[in-house]
């Protein structure tokens, strides 16, 4: 096979870029020079062949997940299944919903095995696995909509928080969405869990059968999509502000459920410039545009 992963340090000399097929990772580790080198060596080593490993089980990964049984073998594939399994009883989901987060987690794990780091992250196209030692924190920037410039918001993840994964899903991303959310950003214990939850919650932000929403069967767009004939959102026309609220609220109901179940730590749902934050505690946010519509605490939800 002539294909080789693309591995290099970015010109800033700090971050590592790993790319193979559809996987595209930006990795940064902080620590002593030696530790960082060990971490990057470990990441590179683990990354090589990783896509082949995943693709070996691709047909099964594209099948709806069984809530209980897992027939998958690979460590990443099994992590994907584990991440989506809690959602599988409620409806259709395949392990592919957690692929990006699971890969990020795997690479971060490989780094942590080989190096002592103060802070590290593996960003797989917005699905991010974090490592934070005591006193460290991450600032996560959110775009109002991923594909449109706009003022941003940030969320702070401290070492003391349980969160070690951040993921964003929505209709502008590279994978299809069944919902209409511009972006749903989830904080969770792991990147794979955040990835799966973001997919599920973004799908829930919806206005079923609304005439202004263009949907197409997924397999018409990508013949081998795991979503098959399910209708994916291709365009959102004029929708009223009350409909925006309604769609966001449907998503928030879903989010509260998974928050109460302990699967996620917090989530920001965005649609047409409106945002709802659902979080176990007040997620620190820095708002540069519109004031939060509401920051709700659903500890007792």
């Amino acid at each position, binding site marked *: 096979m002539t294909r080789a992963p693309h591995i290099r340090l970015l010109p800033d000399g700090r971050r590592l870029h790993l790319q193979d097929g*559809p996987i595209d990772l930006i990795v940064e580790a902080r620590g002593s020079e030696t530790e960082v080198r060990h971490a990057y060596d470990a990441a590179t080593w683990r990354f090589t062949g990783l*896509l082949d490993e995943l693709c070996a089980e691709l047909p099964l990964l594209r099948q709806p997940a069984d809530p209980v049984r897992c027939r998958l073998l690979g460590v990443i594939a099994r992590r994907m299944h584990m991440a989506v399994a809690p959602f599988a009883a409620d409806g259709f989901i395949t392990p592919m919903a957690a692929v990006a987060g699971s890969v990020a987690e795997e690479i971060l794990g490989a780094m942590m095995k080989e190096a002592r780091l103060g802070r590290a992250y593996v960003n797989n196209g917005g699905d991010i696995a974090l490592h934070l030692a005591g006193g460290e924190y991450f600032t996560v920037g959110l775009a109002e909509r991923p594909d449109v410039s706009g003022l*941003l918001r940030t969320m702070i993840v401290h070492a003391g928080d349980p969160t070690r994964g951040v993921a964003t899903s929505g209709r502008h991303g590279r994978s299809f969405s069944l919902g209409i959310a511009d972006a749903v950003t989830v904080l969770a214990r792991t990147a794979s869990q955040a990835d799966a939850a973001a997919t599920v919650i973004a799908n829930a932000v919806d206005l079923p059968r609304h005439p*202004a929403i263009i949907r197409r069967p997924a397999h018409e767009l990508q013949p081998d999509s795991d979503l098959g004939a399910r209708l994916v959102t291709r*365009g959102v026309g004029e929708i009223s502000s009350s409909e925006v609220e309604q769609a966001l609220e449907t998503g928030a109901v879903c989010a509260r459920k998974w928050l109460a179940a302990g699967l996620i730590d917090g989530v920001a749902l965005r649609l047409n410039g409106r945002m709802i934050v659902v979080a176990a505690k007040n997620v620190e946010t820095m708002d540069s545009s519109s004031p939060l519509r509401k920051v709700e605490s659903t500890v007792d939800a």
Partner: protein
Amino acid sequence: MLTEPNAAADDKIRCDACPVMCYIKPGAAGACDRYANHDGQLVRVDPHIVLERTVSHGGRLVPFQAGGDWDGKIVHEPSIFVTAIGAGTTYPDYKPAPFIVSSEIDGVDMVTVVTEGIFSYCGVKVKIDTDRYLGPETATVRAQGEAVGHVTTGEYGSQMLSLGGVHHLTGGSKKEGRVTCDALMDLSNCKPVELTIDGGATVVVQAGYPPIVNGVPEERMRVGCGSATIGMFAKQWHGKVDEVVVVDDHITGVLSEHQAGKLLDIPDTGIKMKGRRSTPGRYFQVAEPGTGWGGTKISNPLSVLGPFDVKKARPGMTMLMVSTTGEHAAYYVLDEALRPVEKVMPIDLRSSVERIQENCEPALCTVLFMAGAGGSLRAGVTDNPVRLTRSVKEALTRVTSGGAPVYVWPGGGITFMVDVTRLPAGAFGYVPTPALVAPIEFTLKLSDYAALGGHMDHVRPLASLKDNTEIRQTLSQPPLSGPRA
């Protein structure tokens, strides 16, 4: 937005670039967005360029060192700020990981919010300094045979083109959208683009360079219209030649009839001009427009003249014919039959022609990128839709593009224009939507940011970036006129 062309018949191909082995429909890309099915062929598509560009810039932030003193006011250039070029880390996942950076300038903290915007609503306005006829107003402008824009108004010494816009990007065929996107990106990145105008010329446009019209590079803008040229040079011609005709597609000037000639008591010469007389010494439409003398299609200037009036003209009379740029000039003497015969131009007339040339500015193509950043910003505050744009309009938030100043149009939204030559090389990219990716930065006072409810203790200090990023010197050019946000 609401319509999407249906994919063609089922002639999908299987990509073997990686073990995912995607089936790809015609016109679509695989899971990686790097390989696509282009008319049945597996091709590497250019989101990769965006990715490569972004990654090769690697989210590399480019702080700008700008000239001028900082007086604490936001409308001035901060001494350093960070551009959005390459801010999206893992494009084309459309999940940019933007940076918020603070820098302290004379005690005033600044916050720059950087991202790369994807603009479906965008285009370029092209100003081509030429008197040559490029094509009729509203004529379609094509690149690679596809309609990418139209000819708009002629301005003083220049022809304007309006290219791109949402109709060409997403309203036409897929190919039209792709070609438009390519043309816009190349023009915005200061690369040459060949444009063909229906019923007109072929012109190579490159920002900051002279236009090449039908293969001939333009050198100079005209000094003025034909009539204005007469006015400017009448005194220099007085006593050296009996008649001067300044050939111009718009207004051809005739010295002996022109007000400037009358004031110098220049006698009638019996000259007869073709075309439509506007006022004395000023003629419209002496010839069809073209790429010859003075923006007309003529190569022989005598063709704009009728026979001389036998009652006023006399053998031996001298005449200079010159174009508005001095690029074309010829000297004639009337023979016994009162026919103009071309002769070697006397030195002092030659120097007046050189003077016209000297007074013509170099002809350039200039390209302004124009885009609307309004969508999500306006939608962001449905309670009071103008609130966010107001912060821009009131200069609380300054908008820049790749560090370059922009002109923000009055009215709704944040529709801005920027001179593409002021952005760093390769600042523009595209996504296959198709749409252009352009850097845009919002800079506001930290105190204003805080007033909007921000948690300021986690804004990243600029010093944390500076060590690892390329420092660019920007030219201390005056900003574009008009209100700046």
